[in-house]
């Protein structure tokens, strides 16, 4: 009510036109508001040119056939129909992406949590270990992919050499139809487990009040019970945040798989993920209309996953500060 959406009390004088346009009361405030718009200007342009405009354009393009050179041709829902029924790589690439995510998300989350729990004990040398775990995240994705292609070299890579030394013939890793996907999972887990997710967990763990643990200990709770009934509920908001970001990140898997295969999707399309499918349609075949339709399907999938997580989170996320 204090915000003054009502006209001035006298009834005779209403707010100056400019002031009411920008949602304030007096000319002084209106001048201030104009300064606010001025400082906002770069972002308004950025938002329109690089986000809102492209979103609308890509939606419109998804109903056309367009190769950048000749003008777009309206084709109705044909692109969506092709995606669902006429594209041999659509469903496989989608399943491949889900297969990847269903392993990477839980293993990555619990792995990061485990690392954070170990660091949270505050043992001497924690700083060293934290940095050692975090280094992999600082590695540019391209270098990460090259490093691991070399380590997973079937003939002279250290992993297969070590396996051979103990009598196990190592697989062909990235060159093998069945091992390509597990290899990329391994590479990306290594590249992300000790990274941001772990740091965010660590901050969450450090936010759990020490008194809760002490109270639980006095009540005779075992180490596991304290973890299950104190730690887990208290960090559930952090867990939720990491889960949402983790799922989105996993579904967008692209760079590692692109670099290790040179963009061709690996042996028998084993690494042809959905993001790669979109990229290839757009920038190798210049089917901009079709790629836009795929991108929109992708957006809907990401939104659906995020929405379900938000809905489900009401059952398991606990906010210590009440509803937020």
């Amino acid at each position, binding site marked *: 009510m204090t915000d003054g959406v009502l006209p001035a009390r006298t009834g005779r004088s209403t707010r100056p036109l400019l002031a009411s346009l920008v949602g304030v009361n007096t000319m002084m405030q209106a001048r201030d508001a104009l*300064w606010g718009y001025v*400082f906002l200007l770069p*972002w308004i342009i950025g938002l329109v040119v690089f986000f809102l405009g492209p979103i609308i354009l890509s939606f419109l393009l998804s109903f056309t056939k367009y190769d950048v050179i000749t003008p777009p041709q309206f084709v109705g829902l044909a692109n969506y129909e092709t995606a669902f029924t006429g594209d041999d790589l659509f469903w496989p690439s989608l399943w491949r992406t889900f297969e990847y995510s269903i392993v990477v998300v839980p293993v990555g989350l619990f792995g990061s949590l485990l690392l954070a729990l170990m660091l949270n*004990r505050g043992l001497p040398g924690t700083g060293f270990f934290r940095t050692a775990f975090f*280094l992999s995240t*600082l590695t540019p994705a391209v270098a990460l992919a090259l*490093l691991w292609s070399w380590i997973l070299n079937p*003939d002279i890579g250290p992993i297969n050499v070590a396996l051979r030394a103990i009598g196990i013939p190592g697989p062909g890793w990235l060159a093998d139809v069945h091992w390509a996907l597990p290899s990329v999972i391994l590479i990306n887990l290594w590249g992300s487990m000790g990274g941001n997710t772990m740091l965010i967990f660590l901050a969450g763990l450090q*936010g759990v009040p020490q008194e809760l643990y002490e109270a639980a200990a006095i009540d005779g709770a075992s180490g596991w019970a304290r973890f299950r009934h104190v730690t887990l509920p208290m960090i559930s908001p952090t867990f939720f945040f990491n889960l949402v970001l983790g799922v989105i990140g996993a579904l967008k898997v692209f*760079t590692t798989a692109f670099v290790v295969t040179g963009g061709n999707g690996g042996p028998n399309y084993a690494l042809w993920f959905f993001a790669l499918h979109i990229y290839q349609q757009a920038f190798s075949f210049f089917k901009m209309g079709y790629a836009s339709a795929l991108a929109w399907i992708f957006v809907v999938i990401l939104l659906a996953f995020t929405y379900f997580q938000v809905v489900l989170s009401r059952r398991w996320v606990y906010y210590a500060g009440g509803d937020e």
Partner: protein
Amino acid sequence: MAMSEKVFAERAARAVGVGRRRGVGDLLLYVPLIIFAIIFVFPFFWSVSSSLKPPDEILSFPPTLLPSVPRWSNYVRVFERAPFARWILNTIIVVVLATLGAVLSSSLVAYSFARFRYRGRDLLFMITLGTMMLPAQVTLIPQYILWSKLGFVNTLLPLFVPQWFGGGAFNIFLLRQFILTIPREFDEAAIIDGASRFHIFRAILLPLCVPALMTVVIISFIANWDDYLTPLVYLNSEMQYTLALGLSLFKNYPETGGEPLQHLLMAASVMTILPPVLLFFIAQRYFVQGIVMSGIKG
């Protein structure tokens, strides 16, 4: 609430005696810690070691753990085999201009969101946060069409120009949160002295924002240094490549005159990894702060 706090306090007092004592369990914890540290560090060790091997040793079987004689000239050879210096230069141009644009424009926008009252502000702020969820694929295609119609495909412009228009939602969010923690009295005192709104921003708020600006600088530096998708889409001649893109192309170079590329590829990778790692060591504090803030308040 008061009740339970009292109970906690009493219990805590009693618990002082049983506080955190280091036991055998804690010592045992070093076993997994060390195993994980080895898992995370070994690939770096292996790539540095490989990068210093002579060509015949790198393909020998069984592989050696360390090069018999470290061959530093491999690093020089990288610059002879590929336009590596040019790629470094391109990357520096992109990183510096993108970071500068992000810092300047995101702080200005954050100031507007944090300190001014105007119609549509909260809606615009919600939209801003919403852009963080958007997958790059959906905006990438129209953006590409835009740059190609303007004739700037295969230039570095698409890689840094967008950063000058707001610097991205995350940076705006981070700086807005930071400005909100600065007391408004500082601004008001300056207004009474007759300072302009821009002067308040430049002379009062920006100097106080330095820690948050450092976070933006570091995150922006690393993001642009590492970026692969954008250069991949926009750049198609070798002399325009950034390091990330050049490195992946280097992999496909033909091996001429019996010279394998693997040791050079590893030397090039090590050089690509080093700058973000060094930056992290120099400014670790700001970096971790930024990540953690995104997690807690996101």
